[in-house]
């Protein structure tokens, strides 16, 4: 009997050990920094892994970096979808809500995407925060300074998370938007009052006699002659000089993507 119980326990322990090993393997496959495109040296990789791990553990929000040759190997529908697919497939994130931020670089077409997941993460990196964050690393990436870009990214993630923990997350100043909104509201109110004011006077001279037309318009001539063409050109204002990026949503989180 004892032998049976022991052998059952042994099997149970073996199964648990195998599961743990499998989970460990998954974690091992994607650390905080995964350089499949081989952009970083070994020491750089180790240094970044150390920095990202420290920030992640301090704030319980995973800060991840993944580089790949082509994002289509993960998801063919776009770099942002590939990023959140990667995040969820590898169960990235820390804490019960799996909070984390993942930066993915796809080198074939120089695509990038950032994905934020979890309430605490999205509190620290709202759309304005994400927009500001991309500025710190895109300049480096455009100059192929991978280590510089990644280290700036991790450092700034730490700063954003620290600010959020202190209850002062990075937010856009609403002053300009509020002034514009107040101006528009005042204008709308003025237009409405003017329309009502105009209705106080219903006396107006008539310039047409449409009510007394007995025979509708008989058109005898209808010519439209093209005379000339004028052309004007204006430069399209870009948000950043070296490429464009845009806000994204999906994968139960939010983020941004673009080219560098």
């Amino acid at each position: 009997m004892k032998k049976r119980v022991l052998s059952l326990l042994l099997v149970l322990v073996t199964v648990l050990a195998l599961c743990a090993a499998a989970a460990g393997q998954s974690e091992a496959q994607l650390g905080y920094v995964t350089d499949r495109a081989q952009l970083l040296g070994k020491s750089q990789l180790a240094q970044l892994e150390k920095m990202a791990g420290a920030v992640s553990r301090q704030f319980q929000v995973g800060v991840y970096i993944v580089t790949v040759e082509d994002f289509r190997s993960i998801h063919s529908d776009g770099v942002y979808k590939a990023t959140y697919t990667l995040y969820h497939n590898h169960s990235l994130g820390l804490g019960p809500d799996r909070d984390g931020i993942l930066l993915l670089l796809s080198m074939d077409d120089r695509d990038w995407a950032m994905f934020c997941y979890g309430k605490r993460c999205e509190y620290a990196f709202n759309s304005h925060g994400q927009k500001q964050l991309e500025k710190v690393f895109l300049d480096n990436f455009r100059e192929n300074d991978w280590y510089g870009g990644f280290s700036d990214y991790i450092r700034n993630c730490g700063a954003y998370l620290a600010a959020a923990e202190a209850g002062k997350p990075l937010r856009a100043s609403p002053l300009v938007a509020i002034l514009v909104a107040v101006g528009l509201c005042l204008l709308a109110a003025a237009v409405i009052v003017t329309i009502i004011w105009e209705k106080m006077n219903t006396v107006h001279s008539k310039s047409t006699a449409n009510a007394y037309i007995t025979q509708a318009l008989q058109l005898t001539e209808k010519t439209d002659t093209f005379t000339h063409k004028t052309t004007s050109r204006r430069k399209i204002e870009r948000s950043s000089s070296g490429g464009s990026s845009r806000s994204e949503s999906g994968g139960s989180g939010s983020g941004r993507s673009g080219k560098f």
Partner: protein
Amino acid sequence: MPTEITNYQCPACTGPLRFVGASGKLECEYCGSSFQAAEIQALYAEKEHQAAQAGQEAESQWDTSGICRDWGVEAEAIKAYSCPSCGAELLCDATTAATACPYCGNPSVVPGQFSGALRPDYILPFRLSKEDAIRALKRHYLKKPLLPATFSKANHLQEIKGVYVPFWMYDGRADGSVRFHATQTHTYSSGDYETTETSHYDVRRAGAIAFEKIPVDASSKMPDDYMDSIEPYDYADLKPFSTAYLPGFLADKYDVSLESSRQRADQRCAGSLAQALAGTVTGYATCIETARDICLHRGKVHYALLPVWLLNTKWEGKDFLFAVNGQTGKLVGKLPVSPRRAIGLFAAIAAPLIAISVTALLLMVR
């Protein structure tokens, strides 16, 4: 001796008859009898003829040259009649054609004002009563947030007059062409540049429109803009002129000549043609009229009396005039505006809008 004025009296009790718009009949206030306008017209045809003749004779008998020299032009603008009911002297404008005796209140008609060449072709009888006009005014005060609170309460009607206003009605045709400068735009992006191509067109439209009975008020006493504003009238109810529709209302003969009024009708015809031609220019981003050449073919002119209720009110020492179309009930007028209410309304609209938008913005940036 026949007088220049005719009283329409009830054939049953000799009480004064008044035309009532709701029934379309002449009704006696005393015995309640009612009569068709045609009946009374036939009954009084001879009397009217005599009254008109008396008017002409009076004008030919009296030498007013001396009066004019002594009393100025005002003497020509005033006429004296004798009320056939009570014998009182009625002093009226030279254009007055129907009035009421200030002493006995009986409605009186001056048939001479509408005899011969001065006879109107048509009359549009009143359909609305005085009470209808007052109700229309009360309704007009409703839903006017800028109206001073005391206006509808403190102001009181000074005078309500049902007036048959003389109108010239012009038939005609406008024929002509209008040129427009029209543009089409096409915008496309190429590289870092956005290009806008604007194609310019010389658009020409020509055509004709026919009009019938464009009304132009022929009384200098009536403000033209008020008379324009209470249009349109439904001409289906136009009747051949009869003085039988006049009792109970005021009426004037025209004092603005046909030629003086024609210009306003011409402007409206040309305006309608240009507007109709502009309506055929479609498919362009912009269209600006650059020239017009419109020829007006003038047709027949009619002379008609159209029904108008005039309501005068006084508030804080200022007079306010309202005109009601006596047929359709359309009311027009200029109401006073309370600056305090205007500011209050502005604040009442702006404050919640600002509160909602600012709150939404603050929530968005959180």
